[in-house]
């Protein structure tokens, strides 16, 4: 039901900003997040004892004999049936058993009814660790100064080649072996530019920390919590507890933001809570405080890109060579997939004849990096956009002209050889953002200096693949169930979670329109592995586009049956539904996703249709730089973003604005600082995310280049795209304002000053 809404929702509802269905519960405080769930009988609190050492041999665990342990449950590695967090590679233990590989690695779990005593218990555990030399720097890891993971510290590598026959077959060398064909292709160009670009860690900083409540009963294991992907947790439990699938019950509580941070990490906290619950026989609630959440959970992967490109004197881009390294942290987690997306976006939204991109992810002794909105693409888009700005400078042209000249258009071919047949809107987004922001006039005028501030403007053009890479959806087989309910209602059951994006509301809109019924005649079940089919994870900007299209088809199917019944025996939609149910019993449409048949993808050569379609965008940032302190303030932000079809424009803009502000924070104020593998700023007071005063006015233009297979008339993914363009647009604006070309993030005053001094030294 849509509560408290004074407006009548028109039909069809797609394209209308239907008020958030879960809104009333959220604005009244009735929505139950994990820490709000009623206490279960005999519930204990859980806590984690973590390694203070970045790398070492775990010799033993000492429990203070003076402490009264009688009412404390203790779990160690030896208590676990299979001590592995199931994900892509089984390299991460649930609790460290013999070695520790990063500071904050969990070693011992404790549970106690008394929270204050539990905190003392954590301090009464001493870990006996013999330190080994750690590696914190990804280039040192690549250089194998120490072997800290596997045979060579390498977690994953990819190679993309395109163009001339010899470039296309160039071997997959990463270290040492030279790439001669691409070098030759570049050398043949009129203008050659080389650059090195660095992107840093980022903390998701959802406002609700990670948390889970776990318990066991005759049905098996239960976990409820702040979870983006319930079936990931389900898989992790299957492996660790050797349980049958139907003995595991994972349910999402209302979730206070995720942004990727609650994609894979919840498996760990849920396993920990469930282990304590199993051993104690009592329910266990485990909620991280902010410090623990920042320290122990995943971050965005740092990334170095070395780019050399060649173009004609008229600016036509010809050849591109990229070597990129990502820092995966101590364990693999989702790194191969993040690296993949980063690699696939590294050439940017542009046409190149010859391309060679080699990418490699290495281990370091830092907490594992993982999913974060954008998933590797913001890092490489940062690099290629900065690089094109440098190319434009060398050509003596405005970057936007160079980008406009080379942006991919319909019929063009991407770096993986994908022919872009339709739904290509880079040029349109560019034009709209440039017009709205008065970019050209402002650039032509030059930086505006007034008093001690200089104002500049910059732009970024980018695309983001919607949905899983390549054949991902084919392996995944995402499913949705839609039930036909009494009175002509529909009930959606899916594992796609609403973590704030508005899935619940948008899915209802899609189903309602498909069935020709009202939005408030559609229900949405709480995502749970027991009652909902596996729709695939809530990631990769796939929820609306992929899962939404299954919802649409299932709703269509059901309504067709009801309408046939109306046709045959009369009555209303509701009456016909009731007759059908009376006759046949419960009626459900359980459908599986059918990926577009035109997609061909080769996982071994990394050639083909990398994504079913792309979202396109152009961001323009206007900044003020304080000429004394070099502090950067983003004062205005325009974004023209192609979403295919905006099912719910207000929510769609909300995604774009929220994602853009995360990009702005990443660019100017957010920075994780380290000492010996410890995070020195694990608090909201010193890891600075933007406040309402730091946020610019957002001027968001929705562009709609429909994707034929998208629901609601062509919706594409929108979740991640807005994270991609902010940082390079801001850096371009800073360059416009003060003439310093920043290649490294974040754009903090110290870094800008250092870069300015360095450039003055070289020009002197």
């Amino acid at each position, binding site marked *: 039901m849509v509560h*408290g809404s004074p*407006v009548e929702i028109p039909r069809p509802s797609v394209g209308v900003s239907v008020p958030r269905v879960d809104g009333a519960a959220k604005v009244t405080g009735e929505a139950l997040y994990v820490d709000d769930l009623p206490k279960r009988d005999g519930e204990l609190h859980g806590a984690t004892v973590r390694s203070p050492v970045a790398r070492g041999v775990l010799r033993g665990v000492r429990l203070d004999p003076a402490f009264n342990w009688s009412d404390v449950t203790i779990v160690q590695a030896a208590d676990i049936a299979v001590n592995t967090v199931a994900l892509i590679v089984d390299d991460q233990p649930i609790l460290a058993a013999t070695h520790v590989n990063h500071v904050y690695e969990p070693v011992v779990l404790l549970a106690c009814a008394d929270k204050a005593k539990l905190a003392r218990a954590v301090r009464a555990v001493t870990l006996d660790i013999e330190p080994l030399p750690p590696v914190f720097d990804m280039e040192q890891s690549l250089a194998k100064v120490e072997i800290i993971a596997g045979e060579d510290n390498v977690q994953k590598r990819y190679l993309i080649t395109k163009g001339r026959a010899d470039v296309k077959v160039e071997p997959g060398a990463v270290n040492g072996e030279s790439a001669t064909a691409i070098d030759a292709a570049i050398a043949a160009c009129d203008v050659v530019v080389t650059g090195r670009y660095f992107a840093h860690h980022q903390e998701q900083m959802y406002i609700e920390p990670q948390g889970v409540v776990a318990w066991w009963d005759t049905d098996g294991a239960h976990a409820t919590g702040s979870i983006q992907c319930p079936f990931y947790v389900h898989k992790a439990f299957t492996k660790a507890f050797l349980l049958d699938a139907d003995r595991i019950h994972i349910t999402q509580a209302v979730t206070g933001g995720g942004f990727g941070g609650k994609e894979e990490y919840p498996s760990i906290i849920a396993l920990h809570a469930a282990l304590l619950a199993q051993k104690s026989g009592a329910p266990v609630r485990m909620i991280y405080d*902010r410090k623990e959440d920042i320290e122990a959970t995943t971050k965005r992967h740092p990334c170095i890109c070395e780019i050399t490109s060649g173009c004609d004197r008229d600016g036509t881009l010809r050849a591109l060579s990229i070597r990129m390294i990502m820092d995966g942290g101590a364990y693999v987690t989702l790194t191969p997939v993040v690296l993949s997306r980063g690699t696939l976006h590294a050439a940017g939204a542009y046409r190149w004849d010859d391309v060679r991109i080699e990418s490699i992810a290495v281990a370091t002794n830092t907490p594992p990096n993982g999913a974060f909105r954008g998933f590797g693409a913001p890092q490489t888009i940062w690099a290629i956009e900065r690089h094109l700005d440098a190319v434009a400078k060398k050509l003596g042209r405005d970057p936007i002209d160079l980008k406009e000249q080379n942006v991919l258009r319909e019929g063009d071919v991407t770096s993986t050889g994908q022919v872009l047949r339709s739904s290509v809107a880079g040029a349109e987004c560019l034009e709209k953002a440039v017009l709205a922001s008065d970019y050209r006039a402002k650039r032509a005028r030059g930086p505006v200096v007034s008093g001690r501030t200089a104002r500049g403007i910059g732009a970024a053009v980018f695309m983001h693949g919607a949905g899983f890479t390549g054949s991902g959806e084919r392996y995944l087989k995402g499913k949705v169930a839609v039930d036909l309910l009494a009175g002509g209602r529909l009930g959606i059951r899916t594992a796609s979670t609403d973590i704030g994006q508005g899935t619940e509301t948008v899915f209802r809109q899609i189903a309602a329109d498909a069935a020709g019924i009202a939005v408030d005649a559609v229900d949405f079940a709480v995502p749970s592995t027991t009652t909902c089919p596996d729709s695939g994870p809530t990631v990769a900007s796939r929820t609306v586009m992929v899962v939404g299209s299954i919802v649409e088809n299932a709703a269509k199917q059901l309504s067709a049956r009801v309408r046939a019944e109306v046709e045959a025996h009369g009555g209303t939609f509701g009456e016909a539904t009731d007759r059908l149910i009376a006759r046949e019993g419960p009626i459900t449409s359980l459908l599986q996703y059918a990926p577009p048949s035109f997609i061909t993808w080769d996982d071994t050569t990394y050639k083909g249709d990398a994504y079913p379609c792309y979202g396109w965008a152009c961001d323009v940032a206007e900044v003020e730089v304080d000429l004394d302190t070099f502090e950067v303030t983003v004062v205005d932000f325009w974004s023209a973003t192609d979403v295919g079809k905006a099912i719910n424009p207000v929510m769609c803009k909300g995604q774009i604005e929220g994602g853009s502000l995360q990009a702005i924070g990443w660019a100017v104020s957010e920075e994780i600082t380290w000492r010996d593998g410890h995070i020195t700023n694990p608090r909201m*007071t010193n890891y600075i995310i933007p406040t*309402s005063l730091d946020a610019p006015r957002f001027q968001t233009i929705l562009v709609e280049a429909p994707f034929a297979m998208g629901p609601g008339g062509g919706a594409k993914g929108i979740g991640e795209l807005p994270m991609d363009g902010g940082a390079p647009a801001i850096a371009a604006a800073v360059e416009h304002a003060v003439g310093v070309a920043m290649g490294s993030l974040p754009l903090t005053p110290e870094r800008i000053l250092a870069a300015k001094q360095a450039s003055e030294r070289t020009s002197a």
Partner: protein
Amino acid sequence: MKISLTLNGAPRELDSAPLVRLLDALRGPLGLTGTKEGCGEGECGSCTVLLDGDPVNACLVPIGQCEGRAITTVEGLGEMAHLSPLQRCFIDEGGAQCGICTPGMLISAEALLRRVPDPDEPTIREALAGNLCRCTGYQRIVESVRRAAELLREGAAR
């Protein structure tokens, strides 16, 4: 110690150690979980409540200091069936996404609108600067507050 206070307009009593955080007293013995904890150190504002009409971070206020005072939490602003204009605008204008910051935001906005019926955008941003939101980019929150102020001025029913 015994503490008497007024909670969302109703007199309440509880027995508590005086140094217990108001946040824990609200969420625990007083049974109102609408007030959220995002940091526990006065930085995020998700625990904002009104103490005698002024917004405070409930994670920094010991319950012992609340004797005889009036506290308003999000539960005191309106109910599912009778939303306040501010609550309604947060839904309609997209001011709440994940919703975890929303109770604190609403309370800060409520305090503002009680003081300033016609706030301009910088005033709204200033009033919300102590409430972090990671989802919205703030624009729709500012818009929600502005719209609510308009409705209130037009004398919409409360």
